[in-house]
């Protein structure tokens, strides 16, 4: 592979090798990126993208290979070395201190001082100047805990700029963003590139690659499969490089008659920690054979609504009916017993026990399953059979079911949660961002699984920040704004409407249609 520009590369990786016990995560990877270039890094879950970037950021020592910046060989023993050399990283899972302010988060570890003390005024001023220069909107004095995801990401970018990063790495930066926030981020990245910074971003969304990147490098099984100029490529071609086949054309969603109400919410009110109504008098129902979508800009009450239905939060008023039984005051266990399953948004803290094995995570909710026990004691053989079967069915890429979940790549973690919840054969499935961070192939299969639940005459409540996902799957779409449902759209009416996504976006921003 040659450098893809006439200029000398700002960053060059030569023959990077990284092994984990039983896995060759990076297998002689070469990569060269020019200054001012935006490079997309693509690949299936577990292809080695995050690992490669962690090597570049000094978090993992490479087993072999070289890193060159502006032609000079580097040796990173820790992130500190990489930061010094001008590399900045925005991690897949944000690395922020929620209780501290934006300015404190940015200057952390490199604080401006006056009379030996922390100079908060100078910190706020420097952060404001940086934000101004690169067009990032954020209030230096705000507490990070109070910020929406999009702003938190800007804080992460500011952190790298404050440390004079010339190479900026973003690991799945759009996974948690709303469409508006995503456009904002792209603007920022283009601005950074035009000021000569090199940007590398990982994504599973091919359209984003087409919109933003100059070149795309596809990894597969730890190796570079291809590097292409985006202008000469297409989403289909990129997809073929990634998964080695074409995607199935369209989801086959056949209209079907809906049955009785399986999940109903009546005048539900949920308060946030300050006593504000974060969910305000919400009522809706999901019938058998139906997928109902919950759309909206993050922070408008969707998460709290879902948490209340799942039993993680007590509502202040209103009722929740599961299969026509009032479950408002019942425990999570009772709800699950009654047929509720839940794929939570935060897979790492809510969805998984990270230190436990894949097998343990997969059987967490299945302990009543008779094939798992023998005379009341867990049967290892039964567990092995049950979990290996799930791993195969959901195409989870792991060395063994005994592996700890925190060794898994982001997308494979998501598959573990999805597999466990779908295996319950739930009456009502609540799916919150079910495809975040999973590759196109796996997202496709999760979509098929959700549709299968619907087609078997059961109910799905799907909360997603992806309008396209909601449009593709749902029969009805509820749009939330400031804790209320501000619009209900029918899929049939939106089908083939090119402005459908815009309509949702407008409602979600509090507008009128």
């Amino acid at each position, binding site marked *: 592979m040659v450098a893809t520009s006439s200029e000398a590369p700002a960053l060059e990786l030569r023959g990077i090798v990284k092994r984990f016990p039983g896995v060759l995560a990076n297998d002689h990877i070469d990569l060269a990126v020019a200054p001012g270039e935006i490079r997309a890094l693509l690949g299936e879950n577990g292809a080695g993208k995050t690992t490669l970037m962690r090597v570049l*950021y000094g*978090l993992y020592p490479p087993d072999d290979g070289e890193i060159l910046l502006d032609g000079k060989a580097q040796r990173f023993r*820790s*992130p*500190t070395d990489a*930061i010094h050399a001008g590399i900045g*990283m925005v*991690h897949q899972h944000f*690395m*922020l*201190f*929620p*209780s*501290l302010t934006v300015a*404190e988060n940015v200057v*952390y*570890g*490199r*604080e401006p*001082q006056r009379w*030996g*003390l*922390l100079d908060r005024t100078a910190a706020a001023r420097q952060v404001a100047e940086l934000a101004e220069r690169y067009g990032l909107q954020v209030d230096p004095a705000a507490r990070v805990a109070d910020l929406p995801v999009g702003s938190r990401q800007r804080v992460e970018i500011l*952190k790298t700029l404050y440390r004079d990063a010339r190479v900026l790495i973003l690991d799945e930066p759009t996974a948690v963003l709303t469409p508006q926030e995503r456009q904002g981020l792209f603007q920022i990245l283009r601005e950074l590139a035009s000021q000569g910074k090199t940007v590398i971003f990982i994504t599973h969304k091919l359209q984003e690659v087409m919109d933003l990147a100059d070149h795309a490098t596809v990894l597969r099984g730890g190796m570079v499969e291809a590097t292409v100029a985006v202008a000469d490529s297409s989403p289909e071609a990129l997809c073929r490089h990634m998964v080695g086949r074409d995607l199935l054309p369209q989801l086959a969603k056949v209209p079907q008659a809906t049955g009785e109400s399986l999940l109903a919410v009546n005048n539900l009110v949920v308060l946030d*920690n300050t006593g504000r109504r974060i969910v305000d008098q919400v009522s809706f129902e999901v019938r058998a054979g139906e997928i109902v979508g919950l759309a909206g800009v993050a922070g408008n009450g969707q998460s709290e609504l879902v948490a209340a239905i799942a*039993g*993680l*939060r*007590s509502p202040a008023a209103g009722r929740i009916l599961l299969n026509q039984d009032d479950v408002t005051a019942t*425990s*999570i266990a009772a709800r699950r017993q009654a047929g509720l399953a839940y794929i939570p948004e935060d897979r790492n803290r809510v969805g998984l026990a990270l230190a436990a094995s894949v097998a343990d995570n997969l059987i967490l909710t299945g302990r009543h399953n008779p094939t798992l026990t023998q005379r009341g004691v867990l049967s290892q053989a039964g567990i092995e059979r049950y979990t290996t079967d799930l791993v195969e069915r959901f195409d989870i890429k792991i060395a063994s079911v005994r592996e700890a979940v925190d060794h898994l790549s982001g997308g494979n973690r998501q598959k573990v949660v999805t597999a466990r919840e779908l295996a319950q054969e739930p009456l009502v499935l609540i799916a919150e961002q079910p495809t975040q961070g999973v590759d196109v192939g796996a997202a496709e299969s999760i979509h098929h699984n959700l549709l299968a639940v619907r087609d078997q005459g059961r109910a799905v409540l799907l909360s997603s920040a992806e309008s396209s996902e909601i449009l593709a799957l749902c029969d009805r779409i509820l749009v939330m704004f400031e804790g209320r449902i501000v619009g209900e759209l029918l899929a049939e009416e939106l089908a083939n409407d090119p402005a459908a996504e815009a309509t949702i976006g407008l409602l979600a921003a509090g507008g009128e249609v």
Partner: protein
Amino acid sequence: MNELANLFDAALLSSTMRFATPLLLAALGGLICERAGIFNIALEGLMLTGAFAAVAGSYYAGVLGGVGAAVVAGAALAALYAGFVVGLRSDEIVVGIALNLLASGLTVFLLRALFGVKGAFQDPRIEGLGSVRLPLIEAIPIVGPLLSGHSWLVYAALMLVAIVWVVLFHHPLGLRLRGVGEQPDAAATLGVNTRRVQAAALIVSGMLCGLAGAQLSLGSVTLFVEGMSAGRGWIAVVAVLLGRAHPVGVAVACLVFGFTDSLGFRLQGRDIPSQLTEMLPYVVTLIGLAIINSRRAQQKGLQP
């Protein structure tokens, strides 16, 4: 009425300060660890070790030697703690309990080995901390007896509250410490050595517990008694939680505990059985624990 006035006199306030000081010094140490993300449960053992080292040091090298020995001994034991908890990633509760047991055994053993006594050690050669009189303040009612006439460690403890507050909230070190406690991964990716920060926090807490021990054995008395920390380290742990690891909150909690301590002491020799009066500080501690728990449950807003 008269009885009550008798009870709440100036001496009560004065002894409140004396009782609160060891709690305060130890709790400041616990607070620093808590902020660094380590639940320091060895305050009791660290304090007891400090109390013994203070007496031994004072016996051989005068009062400053005593205080110095207490600080060094506290730091050394805390360094051992750090070696396990930070270095080897052992569980801080398990190791902390082991250290508490070690401290109580070790001080008994050393008492035997160095001074050949059992139970308690008292000797004219042990120099106490003495007391400092504040000439002008002394004359003011209420404030005078509250503030004047204590050992210099009492004043040092009050100043340390301010110092800890400044460092925690207005010094880069404090910012780093709080960051390490809140999100160690985030701190590490910004190039901060989290292990070093945590180890330092533990060692500083050991030094503060050493001072707490010195106040205990050289402050109002000049002797060492086996197990003389008598649960004060545990009360300090509760004070850290009750004060939400904030210097001011922790100081208030310690003063409340100190007050009940001195009230209990004062009630002795009256008609109330001494077993009951001695219970007072621990009952208040229990109430404190109940408050902490109900607060936690509220914060989570979880269903039972």
